[in-house]
């Protein structure tokens, strides 16, 4: 089980995340929602061990992950928000690099890379350099890199960004399948419909604080509306219609 216990992160004196606690059980797919600046990325970085919390701990199976980061990262598959890849490596070389650095045995690694590239429709482009890949292709490479070592925990930060419809559908089904396999999945996204569809539970953040945490069905049932409306109700106290009207009027504004 992965647990966040009273996590707090401050940059200088500015709090990014405050007293965040939740747990992620095997088989659970936990969605994390929140507007820009709500602390989602900071939370993800603390869960991956990239950032040390100012206060609180992240525990995996009852142990503080900071005590043995290497062992924890061996169990972790992570898809970051931005696809920072080495553009001069080919897709195959990048995956081979990641597999080698993860300590995967050689024959398995090459077989797995080829099969996964085939399944993600990247096999024909495997020897092209990543610099020539589209955003969606890069995203698929990141997804393969995260799953190929069969880790226990998955942390996805906006994983669908740039994916075409088919790949996105495959990925949504994959997330559900991972949940059924007993894996722990933490899924950060702006796309509410996807979270609603693939996640069993949801965590809503606002200004670094958890404002709602429950199963997707419960949250909708309590407020009697869809996740999108619930999200707007809880997070944004803005009248979106009136903001849209204001934008149009500014567009049409002419200098006097």
């Amino acid at each position, binding site marked *: 089980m992965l647990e966040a216990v009273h996590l707090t992160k401050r*940059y*200088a004196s*500015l709090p*990014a995340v405050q007293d965040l606690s939740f747990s992620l059980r095997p088989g659970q797919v936990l969605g994390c929602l929140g507007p820009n600046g709500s602390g989602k*990325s*900071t939370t993800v*970085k603390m869960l*991956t*061990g*990239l*950032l040390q919390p100012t206060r609180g701990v992240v525990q995996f199976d009852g142990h503080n992950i900071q005590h043995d*980061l*290497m*062992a924890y*990262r*061996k169990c*972790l598959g*992570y898809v*970051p928000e*931005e696809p*920072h*890849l*080495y*553009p*001069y*490596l080919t897709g195959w070389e990048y995956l081979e*690099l*990641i597999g*080698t*650095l*993860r*300590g995967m045995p*050689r024959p398995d690694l090459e077989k797995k890379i080829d099969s996964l590239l085939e399944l993600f429709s990247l096999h024909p482009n495997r020897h092209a350099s990543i*610099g020539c890949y589209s955003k969606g292709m890069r995203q698929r490479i990141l997804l393969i890199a995260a799953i190929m070592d069969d880790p226990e925990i998955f942390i996805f930060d906006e994983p669908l960004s740039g994916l075409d419809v088919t790949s996105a559908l495959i990925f949504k089904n994959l997330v559900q399948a991972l949940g059924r396999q007993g894996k722990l999945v933490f899924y950060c996204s702006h796309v509410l419909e996807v979270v609603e569809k693939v996640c069993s539970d949801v965590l809503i953040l606002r200004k670094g604080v958890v404002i709602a945490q429950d199963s997707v069905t419960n949250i909708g049932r309590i407020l009697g509306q869809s996740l999108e409306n619930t999200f707007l109700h809880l997070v944004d106290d803005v009248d979106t219609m009136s903001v849209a009207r204001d934008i149009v009027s500014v567009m049409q504004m002419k200098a006097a």
Partner: protein
Amino acid sequence: MITQAADVIFRVWDDHRRRPFWRMVQLFVARIFRGAGDSDADGLDLGIGLVLTLLALPGAFVSLFLMDKYGSLLQWLRGITHVDTLAIVLPDEYFFIVLSMTVTGAVAVWRWDAIFPDRRDYMNLVPLPISTRNIFFANLIAVLFLVILIAFDVNAASCVLFPTVVAASQSEFIFFVKFAVVHAAGVLLGSVFAFLAVFLTLGILMAVLPPRALQRVSAYVRGLVVVYLVGLLCTAFAVPDLLRQAGGHVPSWTALMPSTWFLGLCQSLRGRADPVLTALSARVIPGIVAVAVVALCAYAVGYRRHFVRIAEITDTTVIDHTPALLPRKWRFGVLLDRLALHTAFQKGGFRFICKTMLRSEAHRLALTGVGGLALVLASQALLDAVEGTRSRRAAALSPDALSIPFILSFLVIVGLRIVFEVPVDLRSNWIFQLMLDSDGQECERLAQRVILILVLPGLVAITLPVYAYLEGWLVAGLHTLLVATWAVLLTNIVLIRFRKLPFTCTLPLFKQHSFVTMLSFVFGFLLYARSTPEFESSALLEPVRMLSLIPVAAVAWYVPHFLAKNTIDLEKKLIFEESPTPTIEALRLSD
């Protein structure tokens, strides 16, 4: 037997190569060569092989040019029969040491951002089960490997060719071997020292400065290093003479010129060092050890301060809300809009070009290099003007002093013209492709205005008051007018058939006429910055003679206009991609 041994070695190497740590070392080596940074911008990616070849070329060329000096037959034909080869080799040896240090230092400055692991490495490697200590050591080994590789590559040709050229007139093979070993020691150690010194500078900056300040300061420091290297290269011909004239005392300026230490080492190893060179050679080993140790410590501290904390750094963005100092109508940009930039394209394009040059590392570095070269040549001209001249007035009217604004303007104008060709993140040029009228021929005018706005005010602001003070308003006015006119004409000439928005087009392909272009620049420089001041120097004594320059100016003005008029419409279209010229062109008579 040999095949079996080779197989075993290959298997062991292959096994090692695939271990995580060594795989990471390979990654870092490739990253340092192929570029770093957070964006995948289309930079100047030449590939490892081509880079190594280009680095080896200067040493090879210089060695070949020296055949004339050391060839025994040529010496005999000139009547030189008894030559002390080891004595005449000193200035050339020093030049090779400087060349090796300059090229290696320039490589280190060029790869400045790639020497240390960056955010991309952080995002790819840190979430994996690898300790940050291993990343540190893997990068360190990659850097050390590159130091050695570059040192050997830069000096390989000169280590073989230069001793061959020098020993050509000697009968003993052992002379060649001894000379080659000593020469190799001097240039290789010089290379290693130069790389480590740049590495040390970067490491100290990282260890001392906070991340935001580092970004700003490192750009200026890189510029200073480039200026220093250009200075080192330009003074290479004068330093051996200065050392000979030192008179037994080690000059204090040698502390700032480590190249002299390595010359001392070579001469000491050959047993030909005077007391000054012997004293200088004693600085080599302590110097290299000190630079290496401090560089390593600074690298460790910098790594801890910057790389390990990248996640925190990238999450804290501070927005600068500093209010403007001047009211809007008095700001420089607004004044320019009123006075010089008339169309929307010129206004927008001017801001785009200036901001790109100020903010793009590659462009800033190239311009700093050109600026450094201009300053070094101008200082040399100033020294030559002052040296041996009795009065200030005579010095000011000497061709050397008059050439200073010509040298500066020529190099800056040509430098800007070359820099305009270097693209910046070509993926972003879609906005210009979408919005600009490809038939519009404003690019040439825009580039012309940018160059003149950046060059002319500075030239006038320096030349006019200095000459007004030294020589009176008439001479000052004439000299300034000539410099300004020549700058305008040169700008028109370098922009002939310029039909791109600076920085938005792919790099021009190397064509056969590129050599001709390079030769034209050299010839142009001599004509512009040497012949004109020489004529001006004599003409200023009798100002009416200045009128004879009017026909020259008229021709220089007319040629670009004539060529522009006679260019077909297709060749006036705005381009975003340099296409190769086909070997066979169809006549398309049916079109």
